[in-house]
């Protein structure tokens, strides 16, 4: 009887160990699955963003190359409309619209940086109109915008100038 009892006791721990190992394996597998899913999600996110940005088939091809990785920031039709508005008789090629789009993008980037430099000198966090106006008045490149973005003058100063002009006229008389 004693001899028959001992093998039973031996068998039971074996089965337990086996169960433990199987559960561990299952847990590992689950972890792997989760990590895979996470990776898939991460992978999925990036192409979605790029797909959303690119509207033109050419741009998709262009995205491959590093330098021209960006898709167009501004809608092509809008730019075409604006160009047409300038000179209705003239035809505009697709590459001209594309060139303008890229040029505008670069212009806005540089203009924003220049304006922000003024903002920093002013020790402010918020980029505001006066910083833009300041850049336009200082840099020759932006002269063509001087009528659109005049620097603001205080009413007092304006009145003084007016009084001075008035005085001049009065003196002449």
């Amino acid at each position, binding site marked *: 009887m004693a001899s028959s009892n001992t093998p039973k006791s031996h068998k039971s721990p074996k089965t337990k160990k086996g169960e433990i190992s199987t559960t561990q394996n299952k847990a590992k597998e689950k972890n792997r699955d989760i990590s895979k899913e996470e990776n898939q999600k991460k992978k999925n996110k990036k192409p979605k963003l790029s797909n959303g940005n690119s509207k033109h*088939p*050419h741009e998709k*091809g*262009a995205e491959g*190359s590093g*330098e*021209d990785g960006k898709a167009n*920031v*501004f*809608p092509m039709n*809008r*730019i075409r*409309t*604006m*160009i047409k*508005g*300038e*000179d209705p*008789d*003239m*035809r*505009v*090629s697709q*590459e*001209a619209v*594309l*060139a*303008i789009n*890229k*040029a*505008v*993008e*670069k*212009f*806005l*980037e540089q*203009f*924003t*940086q220049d*304006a*922000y430099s003024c*903002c920093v000198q002013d020790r402010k*966090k*918020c*980029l*505001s*109109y006066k*910083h*833009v*106006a300041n850049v*336009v008045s200082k840099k*020759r*490149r*932006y002269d*063509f*915008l001087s009528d*659109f*973005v005049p620097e603001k003058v205080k009413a007092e100063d304006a009145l003084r100038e007016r009084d001075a002009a008035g005085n001049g006229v009065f003196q002449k008389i």
Partner: protein
Amino acid sequence: MEDSFGGSSSKDKCSIKEQDQLLPIANVGRLMKQILPQNAKISKEAKETMQECVSEFISFVTSEASEKCRKERRKTVNGDDICWALATLGFDDYAAPMRRYLHRFRELEQDHNNSKLNHDER
């Protein structure tokens, strides 16, 4: 009712035309944010000002390119004309990368056309 309808339609037309004269402010604002540090803020007035400046830039460059084409008695403005206009108007640092970009674009265009031909042949 007719009067109000006419009024609303005319207003819509006006607003549409006005909107068409400017680039979308959302795109302008987004690009500005990408350029500036994260903690920087941009006032609405600054965005609107930038919007107008950018639109004026398009008119500025387009006029110059268009004028050149007219003098040369051509009827179509192309990418080279835009590059020339940029250089002429003081944006010479834009012209070189622009030419490279257009060159690449034309190559892609050719590849695209070639692939189309191949597809048709198959």
